[in-house]
């Protein structure tokens, strides 16, 4: 066998490694959740009980699912106007200028800031502001977490939007301008229809990020095991309950936490797959 063939085999078999890792990840999460799955079954998804007391152990994920969805949906709602305007700024209003590239770099830097730093900043700067505004007694809660999450996901929501907005053919825009359209009208009638699917995909991917964010949320949501009853109420998310309880957990509780991780894995994978599918379709 010549060296070319050997090399091709080596490359092929190393690429198998990543398939094996991914498969092993799913398998391990599933195996670790088995005790919890066999004990609670589907009830795990709809029960809001989370009781680690020995003897009456009972675990359900509902309150964490609600907390996760609430914080990440709210984060997306806050992030979309920011991301939408920033990508128009970079890819349309100041396209190709030095200013646009500076703004682009600064937004990318937001993606580089570690989660724990966002958490600290939220804890020491944002929480006191929320308290001062009289919105909640300690400043923790769904709203504060969502605000920080929104800042964290803006870079993910802009990066692909920038590309798709910049890809809108110039001829189309110029034709609209020639007909006397204002810039806003060009954005509404030419840019948006052309860039819509790419922007949607980037918002979906950003949403996937928000769902899995752990530490910043853990530091800001208040970690109360109850379904949040309002924007300024405390709560818990799937990721933050894992971060909080994993260290002391064993037995059935550990298994329930691993099942939460499996759930988180499945949800983020589905969301990312949808995002990637849209991107693939636009080529």
């Amino acid at each position: 066998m010549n060296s070319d063939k050997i090399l091709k085999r080596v490359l092929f078999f190393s690429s198998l490694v990543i398939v094996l890792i991914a498969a092993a990840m799913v398998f391990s999460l599933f195996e670790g959740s088995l005790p919890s799955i066999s004990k609670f079954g589907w009830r795990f998804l709809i029960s809001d009980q989370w009781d680690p007391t020995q003897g009456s152990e009972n675990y359900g994920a509902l309150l964490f699912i609600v907390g996760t969805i609430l914080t990440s949906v709210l984060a997306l709602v806050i992030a979309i106007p920011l991301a939408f305007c920033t990508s128009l700024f970079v890819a349309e209003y100041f396209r190709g200028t030095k200013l646009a590239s500076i703004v682009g770099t600064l937004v990318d830097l937001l993606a580089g800031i570690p989660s724990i730093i966002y958490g600290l900043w939220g804890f020491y700067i944002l929480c006191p502001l929320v308290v001062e505004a009289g919105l909640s007694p300690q400043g923790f809660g769904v709203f504060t977490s969502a605000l920080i999450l929104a800042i964290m996901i803006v870079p993910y929501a802009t990066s692909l939007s920038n590309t798709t907005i910049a890809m809108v053919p110039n001829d189309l825009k110029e034709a609209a301008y020639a007909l006397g359209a204002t810039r806003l009208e060009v954005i509404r009638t030419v840019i948006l229809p052309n860039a819509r699917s790419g922007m949607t995909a980037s918002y979906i991917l950003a949403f996937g990020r928000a769902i899995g964010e752990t530490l910043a949320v853990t530091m800001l949501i208040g970690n109360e095991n109850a379904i949040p009853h309002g924007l300024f109420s405390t709560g818990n998310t799937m990721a933050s309950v894992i971060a909080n309880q994993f260290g002391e957990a064993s037995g059935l509780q550990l298994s329930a936490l691993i099942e939460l991780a499996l759930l988180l894995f499945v949800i983020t994978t589905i969301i990312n797959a949808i995002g990637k599918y849209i991107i693939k379709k636009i080529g």
Partner: protein
Amino acid sequence: MDNIINIGKTAGLLSSIGYRKAKNNIFKILVMVFSFLTISMVFLIIGTLLVKGYKQINLAFFTQVAPDTFTAMMATANGEIIPGGIANGILGSIYLVLIASVIAIPMGIVIGVYLSENSKKKYACVIRDIADIMQGVPSIVIGIIAYIWVVVPLTKGYSVLAGGVALAIMMLPLIVRSTEESLKMVPDTLKEAAIALGTPYYKVIWRVLIPTSFSGLISGILLAVSRVLGETAPLMLTTLGNPDVNWNIAKPGSAVPLLIWQFYNDPNMVNLIWSSTIFLMGFVLILNLISKWIGAKRK
């Protein structure tokens, strides 16, 4: 009568142009304001860290380990800065990233080469999708995976190795994708020229593909390192933290983000948070910028 109607129409058109222009301007202002809000967050966050933390940065901060709670409490009570620093975290972070790099970089580059060489094959598309999906897996889930794979069966307890494995799993897809992207930019003519000269395939890869895309590979690696350097959640489930410097791969170790988490939870150590954060943030952002700079230079 007709004239009046015409004047009215013209006036209506004029006002409608005015109205459209006004809307256009309002939207432009909105775009400016929201963009400004977004980028001001960078300055707000970095500014807060600098203002709150610069006092605590001194030589000891880099050479000593953090004091115990009591010493820290006494120092704070006397209005002094807290003695000691985060040497254990700095060394631990370097150690962790080294372990992760040794596992993830060679494997990632090889898989990236495979993808770029077989980019159209169905199987390669599957690999690419898997890499993309792995990138989206929350870091805490990866922490649990490393706990199940290393902490439980291998080291029988929290360990540096487990943290390294967690970070490696996070780095792998990043390196695979960045390698593929930078290899794609190598002109086919270069490869063809080498093949035409009768160069064996492995030499084409080793002598042509890798060197021409070297800066891209480095930029991808730096970006991956800067990503995992700030990760905290997966380390909480794997390396746990250690008050001393630890080089034993099977024992718990420390890392800068873990120390920040520990300071955050200990009211006496709070003053150490900001200097540690400046350090972490500075390091991550500098790596990030270098990576961007190398990446931009190639274009």
